[in-house]
């Protein structure tokens, strides 16, 4: 058996950041209010930028500094701003919004977190077993990213309001960004930027549809969207 070696700075940082991001994902799952979910999403997105800077410094990839800045501008500033304005616009002002969204969980918080733990374990151990690693790919961070992907899917499923489902999708995108940074940090900047631009357009479309939904039903809840059965 190989002796256990201490991870290098990059690998250690990647693993710690991935673990904290997964914890934040659980926070998103647990948090009842969309406003607080937006804050958690900001923190999670900021960590992505930090990881990009760590990788840029460790592996001498100057492109990643630009990516970190772009990603922070978009995910830490623009997306939360759009979501907050949307919430302010859809808040009737008497606390109903907070009430309505707090009641949007289809499972109790404890059950949702338990389901999240099961999903995270499946993602973590399945990806861990694949043993995908290279010089730039710490296997642990990748397994944590896979766990995050599944928990983000869980978040989109257990919430009944459109805003939380959208945040679930944005955090799914964060999980994929984490996997991309770990596995594909050398990907040309133009493609990374295109992915980010794409996210921006998706945010705009999500926002338009959320507003349309609110204008129609005076609510962010999807509980009434039961006419179509697939």
């Amino acid at each position: 058996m190989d002796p256990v070696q201490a991870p290098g700075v990059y690998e250690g940082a990647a693993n710690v950041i991935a673990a904290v991001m997964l914890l934040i994902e659980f926070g998103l799952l647990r948090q009842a209010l969309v406003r607080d979910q937006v804050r958690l999403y900001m923190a999670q997105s900021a960590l992505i930028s930090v990881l990009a800077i760590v990788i840029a410094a460790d592996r001498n990839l100057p492109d990643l500094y630009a990516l970190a800045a772009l990603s922070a501008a978009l995910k830490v500033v623009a997306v939360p701003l759009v979501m907050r304005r949307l919430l302010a616009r859809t808040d009737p002002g008497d606390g109903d919004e907070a009430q309505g969204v707090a009641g949007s969980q289809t499972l109790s918080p404890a059950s949702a977190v338990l389901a999240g733990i099961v999903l995270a374990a499946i993602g973590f151990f399945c990806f861990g077993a694949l043993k995908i690693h290279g010089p730039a790919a710490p296997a642990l961070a990748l397994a944590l990213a896979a766990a995050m992907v599944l928990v983000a899917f869980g978040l989109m499923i257990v919430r009944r309001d459109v805003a939380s489902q959208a945040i679930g999708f944005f955090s799914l995108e964060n999980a994929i960004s984490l996997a991309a940074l770990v596995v594909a940090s050398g990907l040309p900047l133009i493609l990374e930027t295109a992915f980010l631009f794409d996210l921006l357009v998706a945010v705009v479309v999500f926002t338009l549809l959320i507003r349309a939904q609110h204008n129609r039903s005076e609510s962010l809840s999807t509980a009434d969207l039961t006419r179509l059965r697939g």
Partner: protein
Amino acid sequence: MLGVILALLIVPLAAGLACAILPGSAKLSPVVTATSGVACFGLVLALVPAAAHHDLSYLSYLRVDAVSAIFLLATGFLYAAVGIYSVGYIKHHGHDDRYARRFYAGFNLFGWAMLAAPLMSSLALLWIAVEITTIISALLVAIEDTDGAAEAAWKYVLIASAGLGLALLATVFAYFAGSQVLGEHYNLAIAPLIQHAAGLPRTPVRLAFVLALLGYGTKVGLFPVHTWLPDAHSEAPTPVSALLSGSLLAVSFYAILRYYQFTAVALGSGFPRDALLAFGVASLLLAALYLFGQRDIKRLLAYSSIEHMGILAIGVSFGAPVALAGVMLHVLAHAAAKANAFMGAGVFTVKYGTKQIATMRGALDLLPWSGPLFLLAIFALSAMPPSGIFRSEFEIVYGGLGSGHDAAAVVLVVLVTVAFLGLTTASTRMLFTPAPRSLSAAAALGRGEPSAWMVVPAVAGIAVLFVLGVHPPGELTDLISRAVAQLGAVR
């Protein structure tokens, strides 16, 4: 040819922007859209002879080979036919100028994104183009501003975006696999990945293929990630439904084919073919059963689309050259047939003022052109000779039997027959059951077509189906042969 490819990227984009921003564009938009559609189809036709003999690569991000040319042909034809059809549809739909402007702008941009996807040389750009098709089409699904449209659009954008999240993960693993052989600065180009596929690490490739199949499969409408599809198809304006069904699903399938190409070399063809077979049979089974008992004409056609996507997946899983030729032909024939069926359904909904099959009666009498054309489209979708789908499904089944996939070929034939029964039962009721006196007496239901604009493209579609079934042009046969060689250049 660079000029042609650039024009294909610029013309529909310019048309979309013109419809969106030019003053007085509500009046000009129909002309701009129809012209842009016909021009793009002409441009695609101009690409065919060259793509049938060699691959075209330009500016390091643009590439057309025979496989992409097939999908460009399907999209180009639909963009033109449905663009012309839209002129009559929007005129008779009674919407205001603002709606018309938004519709035409979205329609052209949707066409642009679907034409751009097969032109992209890299898996990353392909993903971005497919994501753009989702974003634009979700807005087009929501454009009717009804409860149903809002619900369908939300379901669509959420499910399809989640699926494309998986596809993005597939792209990341494809990069990881490629960078092991091609170096850190590999830009996800498709051609070198296929060229060096034999040396790719197996686990990341396997993972990338499964994620791509599930991710892009969400947009193809493969079971069990198809649930957005019937809702979006039924709630979107009919021209958009025609594009969604005939072209968008195929473009997403094109993305899966690209992953199939390098996976089959890297892992051997057994694994990807088995995965495609499982998803294909499950989709076909679901669609064949759901075709019975549909009450909404557009949902009926949406399930038929799931059926045909299942057939495509099964055809690729057979792997025999003749089956692959059938798959390529099926992409073209299904695009023409399904667009025709949707265009007919659009005429029916305008005529009867409803999407409910139970209310549509005596269509063959009331609609002298659209009734028979819809019947022919349904026959074509049911693979009756001499339509192109008969030829393509025959080739697929023949290829399956010839390559030792007897059981799968038999299952395919049985399920296609079940689907035929479901499709024709509903259609027969609409077309042949005489309209009740109360219905036909209504002034709106006099005998006649709502608009010639809604008939002409359907006639063209039937002509294309006939040509594909009886005697495909030589250039097209060359193109299909080359595409088969590219897809079948795997053991």
